[in-house]
């Protein structure tokens, strides 16, 4: 297991390097010019100077290596300094956004909480709801509960989040007026009233993402339970005289959770991608919205860094899923 983990970790390094190179070259091709918003009265030689100041004067490979150095050496140092109060990163160049002229990572750190709250909470809710539904649907296959559950999960899985979000806004903000349609990020919680407001503004985005994720997880949970319910060991457990509760909730559930846990782990990076759209619908200014605005402004360092962070998440959670599978299922041996 340890061998496998180490081998996979080493393998993920070239993968990530290659991905970052692909993103970098793509962005380098981009016709968008970060100087586009500079007034035309600025003479061309000054523009050239500004371009160099942004680090655009260097050839491609130097800029790529620079970015790698900044991302893997300077930024961790900054984080280290921030935590321990040291000064390793003194005077070193950080990754700077073209748009805001501030370090990309500090903007990411600013935007991260919003995304994590909305996305993370919805994922937790989705799992908590989907697992019991999946178990019960499979246990009472073809009952009205199962029929309803599979139908709802099919619907939740088919409705794109940008429509369910807009639909919720129409019903609950426009017609009923219960929830605000725009997420107010500057809102701080001071007392019960403001806490309640926070709950209200988070309700719709969280619900949209929860529905979508719960639909997928419950489908998997149901299928996996069904696979296990007909196995011989279940018959044996029943024949031993174990109560139905123990058979289903201990024996079957533990075995059916194996693939579901990996699916849940694999879904984590995807939800950041899905959150791009949901954040756009509810105007939550989290990471996804930042990415969209950076793409529009051809802010290459920002897009590069964010996309790379997404890629790291995907590779990391793939690895976690594989390791979990190996730990949970003794039939799987990687070595």
């Amino acid at each position, binding site marked *: 297991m340890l061998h496998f983990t180490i081998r996979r970790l080493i393998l993920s390094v070239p993968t990530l390097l290659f991905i970052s190179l692909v993103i970098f070259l793509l962005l380098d091709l981009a016709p968008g010019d970060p100087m586009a918003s500079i007034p035309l009265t600025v003479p061309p030689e000054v523009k050239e100077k500004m371009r160099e100041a942004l680090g655009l004067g260097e050839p491609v490979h130097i800029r790529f290596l620079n970015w790698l150095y900044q991302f893997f050496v300077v930024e961790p140092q900054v984080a280290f300094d921030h935590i321990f109060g040291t000064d390793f990163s003194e005077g070193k160049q950080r990754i700077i956004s073209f748009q805001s002229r501030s370090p990309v990572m500090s903007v990411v750190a600013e935007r991260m909480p919003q995304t994590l709250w909305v996305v993370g909470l919805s994922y937790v809710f989705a799992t908590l709801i989907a697992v019991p539904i999946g178990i019960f649907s499979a246990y009472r296959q073809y009952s009205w509960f199962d029929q309803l559950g599979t139908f709802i999960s099919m619907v939740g899985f088919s409705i794109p989040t*940008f429509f369910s979000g807009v639909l919720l806004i*129409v019903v609950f903000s426009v017609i009923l007026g219960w929830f605000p349609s725009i997420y107010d990020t500057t809102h701080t919680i001071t007392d019960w009233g403001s806490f309640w407001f926070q709950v209200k503004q988070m309700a719709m985005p969280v619900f949209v993402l929860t529905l979508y994720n719960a639909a997928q997880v419950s489908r998997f949970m149901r299928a996996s339970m069904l696979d296990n319910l007909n196995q011989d060991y279940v018959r044996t457990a029943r024949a031993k005289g174990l109560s139905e509760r123990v058979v289903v909730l201990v024996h079957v559930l533990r075995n059916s959770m194996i693939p579901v846990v990996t699916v849940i782990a694999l879904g984590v990076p995807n939800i950041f*991608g899905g959150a791009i759209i949901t954040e756009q619908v509810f105007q939550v200014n989290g990471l996804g919205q930042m990415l969209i605005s950076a793409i529009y402004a051809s802010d290459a360092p920002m897009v590069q860094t964010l996309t790379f962070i997404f890629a790291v998440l995907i590779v990391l959670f793939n690895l976690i899923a594989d390791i979990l599978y190996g730990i949970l299922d003794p039939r799987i041996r990687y070595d």
Partner: protein
Amino acid sequence: MTDTTTAAAIPSEKPRNQWWDVWDQFKTHKGAMAGLVFFVFIILAVYLGPLLWTIDPTHIDIRARNTGPSLAHPLGADQLGRDMLARMLQGGQVSISVGLTAMALSLVLGTFIGVLAGYWKGLDGLLMRFTDLFLALPLLPLLLVIIMLFRDPLRSVFGLETGIFILIVFVIGITSWMQAARIVRGDVLALKEREYVLAARSIGTSSGKIVVRHILPNIMSPIMVSATLGIANAIITESALSFLGLGFPPDYPTWGRLLFDAKDFIQQYPERVIWPGLAISLTVLAVNYIGDGLRDALDPRIRGR
């Protein structure tokens, strides 16, 4: 599940094509049948509908601006007075065409890579690493970047509409072939060890012929299931791109674009958001049900029960 073995009727008539069995099984899945009927209806509506409902979707009737449903405009008219029904039909035509073409592209690509990797051992490692690499790409951000990048050059080469159509189909196709490739590779790996492939090889059939004659027909079922998932995925991706404002241009309606345009008027005219959204959701739901039914019908463990 095989507790009661009903006496299987001994086939006395001439042997039937296995696809008839699949169809028989498919018919018993109510959701899948409903989905199929709806999907056929949508396809007929968007491709033949404009012949019956002849209002030009770009025609601006400024006096009908922002009106609700009426006889002249059954779904109302938008902020410029363009007929919503005509725009929905035309938008559906684009969305469905994107879905079908992108699905076809991703299937061809996925099957090609899957067969290569499964059949020729030398290529397997390389191609599968390549597939893993693609699976690790953050797709939505990359799609957005690629579209930003190539929108203008392609527009100048192929014209406004064709250029963006080609671009969107192409980017969706090249970012969604990985699942199909993996499934196909797994099936090919199992199939190529079978006796009939050995028999074919022993009478001197070339590898290419074996793949085309003996392997491809036998991996049709996973390919068909991926096809339905591919259509649903492509329609959603296209709508999502249009919804983020990076899909088709404003005067060229697709369902996603209509939803995006209507979003700004959501307070006053919420029904304009509902129509395209409902169309996308129902189409995707129908396609997903078809996929579910197909998966059941093509699974020999379930079929014939």
